[in-house]
C-alpha cells in the first residue's frame, strides 16, 4: 500500500510540474508589458523599470518561472495588475463560493445518481428502466447553463421560490447562503447525475452477471440481497472513477454557471480578469484549479486501492 501511494505521489508531482510549465508558457507568449499596462501611457521609463522589478517581470524565463512557482508554494500568487491586491487574498474570498458550490453539486449528483442507477438496474428492461434511461439521455444532452436559465425562469421569476442570482453571503447565515447556491448546484449536478446514473446502472448490471452473484443466489439470497451485499461494492470502481472526473467538470462548469447566477466566485473572477487582461490572476487561478483537480484524482486513486486491494498490486 505504501509503495502504491508513493508511486502515485511521484506521478502527482510530475503532473503538477508539467501543468505549471504549460500554464506559465501560455501566459508568457502573450504580447504586451503588464507594467506599461498598469501605469498607463505617460509612465516614466524608470518607474516602469521599478514596477517590472517589483512584479518579477525581469530576469530570464527560468528565473521568472521559478519566482512564480516558488511564490505559489509559499502562498504568494502574485499581485493583480488591475486591482493591485494580492491574488491570494482575492482567491481566498471567492473560494468560499466556488468550492462549496462544487461540493454541493457533487453531493447532489451522487445522491440522485446512486438510487436512480440502482433502481434502473434492479428493474432492468422494465418501463421504469426505459423511462430512467430516456431521462438521463436528456440530462446528458442539456447544456447546463441553459438548464440554469430555465430554472431561473420557473423557480425564480414565476414561482419566486429562489432569487434569480447573486449570493446572500455566509454572514447572512448558513441556510440563506445555501439557498442562493441551490439553483446553481442543481444546474451543475443534473447533467453529471445523468452520466453517473448511467454508469452506476451499467456497472451494476455487469457485476450482476458475475459467477459469484449466481453463487450468492444459489446459496439462497434474493436478487435484492445479492445486489446490496455483493454486487454494489464491486460495481463502485467505475462509479468512483467518474465521480473523480466529475469534480473537474464541476470546477469548469462552475465557472460558466457562476456567470448565469452572477455569483462572485472564482469563475466570475477569471472572466473579469480575462476582460481586463489581468493575466497573472488568470495564470494563478487556473493553476490553483488544476492543482485541485489533480489532487482529487490522486485521492480517487487512493480510494480505489482501499475499495479494491487487487489494484494495489497492479500499480
Amino acid at each position, binding site marked *: 500500500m505504501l509503495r502504491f501511494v508513493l508511486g502515485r505521489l511521484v506521478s502527482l508531482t510530475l503532473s503538477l510540474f508539467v501543468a505549471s510549465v504549460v500554464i506559465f508558457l501560455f*501566459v508568457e507568449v502573450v504580447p504586451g508589458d503588464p507594467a506599461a499596462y498598469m501605469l498607463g501611457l505617460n509612465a516614466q521609463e524608470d518607474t516602469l523599470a521599478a514596477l517590472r522589478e517589483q512584479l518579477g517581470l525581469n530576469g530570464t524565463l527560468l528565473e521568472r518561472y521559478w519566482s512564480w512557482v516558488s511564490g505559489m508554494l509559499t502562498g504568494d500568487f502574485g499581485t493583480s495588475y488591475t486591482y493591485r491586491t494580492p491574488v491570494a487574498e482575492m482567491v481566498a474570498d471567492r473560494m468560499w463560493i466556488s468550492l462549496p458550490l462544487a461540493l454541493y453539486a457533487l453531493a447532489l449528483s451522487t445522491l440522485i445518481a446512486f438510487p436512480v442507477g440502482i433502481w434502473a438496474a434492479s428493474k432492468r428492461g422494465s418501463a421504469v428502466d426505459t423511462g430512467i434511461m430516456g431521462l438521463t439521455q436528456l440530462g446528458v444532452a442539456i447544456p447546463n447553463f441553459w438548464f440554469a436559465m430555465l430554472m431561473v425562469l420557473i423557480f425564480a421569476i414565476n414561482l419566486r421560490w429562489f432569487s434569480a442570482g447573486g449570493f446572500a453571503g455566509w454572514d447572512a447565515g448558513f441556510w440563506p447562503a445555501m439557498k442562493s447556491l441551490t439553483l446553481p448546484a442543481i444546474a451543475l449536478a443534473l447533467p453529471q447525475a445523468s452520466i453517473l446514473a448511467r454508469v452506476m446502472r451499467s456497472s451494476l448490471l455487469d457485476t450482476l452477471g458475475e459467477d459469484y452473484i449466481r453463487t450468492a443466489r444459489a446459496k439462497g439470497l434474493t436478487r435484492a440481497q445479492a445486489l446490496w451485499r455483493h454486487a454494489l461494492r464491486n460495481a463502485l470502481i467505475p462509479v468512483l472513477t467518474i465521480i473523480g472526473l466529475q469534480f473537474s467538470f464541476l470546477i469548469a462548469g462552475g465557472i460558466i454557471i457562476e456567470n448565469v447566477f452572477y455569483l462572485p466566485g472564482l469563475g466570475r473572477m477569471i472572466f473579469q480578469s480575462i476582460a481586463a487582461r489581468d493575466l497573472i490572476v488568470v495564470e494563478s487561478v487556473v493553476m490553483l484549479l488544476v492543482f485541485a483537480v489533480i489532487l482529487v484524482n490522486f485521492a480517487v486513486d487512493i480510494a480505489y486501492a482501499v475499495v479494491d486491494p487487487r489494484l494495489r498490486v497492479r500499480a
Partner: protein
Amino acid sequence: MRASRNLWLGGLLTAVFSLAAVISFAWVPYDVTKLDIGAKLLSPSWAHPLGTDHFGRDILSMIMVGARTSIAVAIVAVGIGIVLGVPLGLAAAARKGSLMDEVIMRGNDLIFAFPSLLIAIMITAVFGASAVNAIIAIGIFNIPVFARLVRGAALSLWTRDYVLAARVSGKGPVRISAEHILPNVTNLLIVQGTIQFSLGILAEAALSYVGLGAQPPLPSWGRMLADAQTMFSFKPHLAIFPGLAILLTVLGLNLMGDGLRDLLDPRLRRAQR
C-alpha cells in the same frame, strides 16, 4: 429493436439540423445581418415562427445560420482529434512498452487531468476569442480520447493471426498499422467521433455563451443565449429556442452514437442483452 429506434431518432434529429445548416447557405427566411428595430422582441407568429430578438432579427433564421457555426466548429475539432490522435494511438500500440508508448500515454493522462473547459477558456483568453481558437481549444482535448481508444483496440489486434501473417510476409509496423489495424478500428472511430461531435457542440455553445467563441456578426447558439440573458425573464422565447436547438442536436448525436455502436459492434450488443 431498441438499437435501430435510437439510430432512427438520432439520425432524424441530426439530419434536420444538418439540413438546416446546409439550406441556410442558399436560403434563410430573413437576412440575419439586417437589423429591423421596428420588429424587435416579437413573440412567435406566422411571420416569425420562433419570434425575433432585440435587434429584430428572425430567430429561426439565426438558429439555421447558427447551426453552421456549431457543426463546423465541432466537426473540425473532432477532425483534429482523429488526425493527430489516431496516429499517436497506432504508434503507441505498435511499439507497446517502449519509451514512445510511455511518453504518449503519460501525455494523454496529463491532458485528461486538465479540466478541458478551463484550458479552453485560458487559450481563448490568451490568444483572443474567435471561432478558430475555440476549435483548437476543443480539438486538443479530442486528441487523447482518440489516441487512447485506438491504442486499446490496436493492442488486441496486434495479437491476431493475420497480423502475424503480415509480419511474416515482411510488412513493417507502419504498413501493418495502416493496412490491417486501422481498417479494424474504423467502427470504433465512427462511434466515438459521433460522441465527441456532440460534446464539441456543447463545448462550443458554452464558450460562445461566455463570449469566448464565435464573434459577432457570426450567429451562434451559445451567444444567442448570452444575448437573451437580460431579457428572457419577460421574453422567454429568446432563450427557449436556441437552447432547444442545442439540446436536440446533442441528443440526436448521442442517440445516433448509441445506435451506431449497437449496429457496428454486434459483440457488444449480445453482451448487453
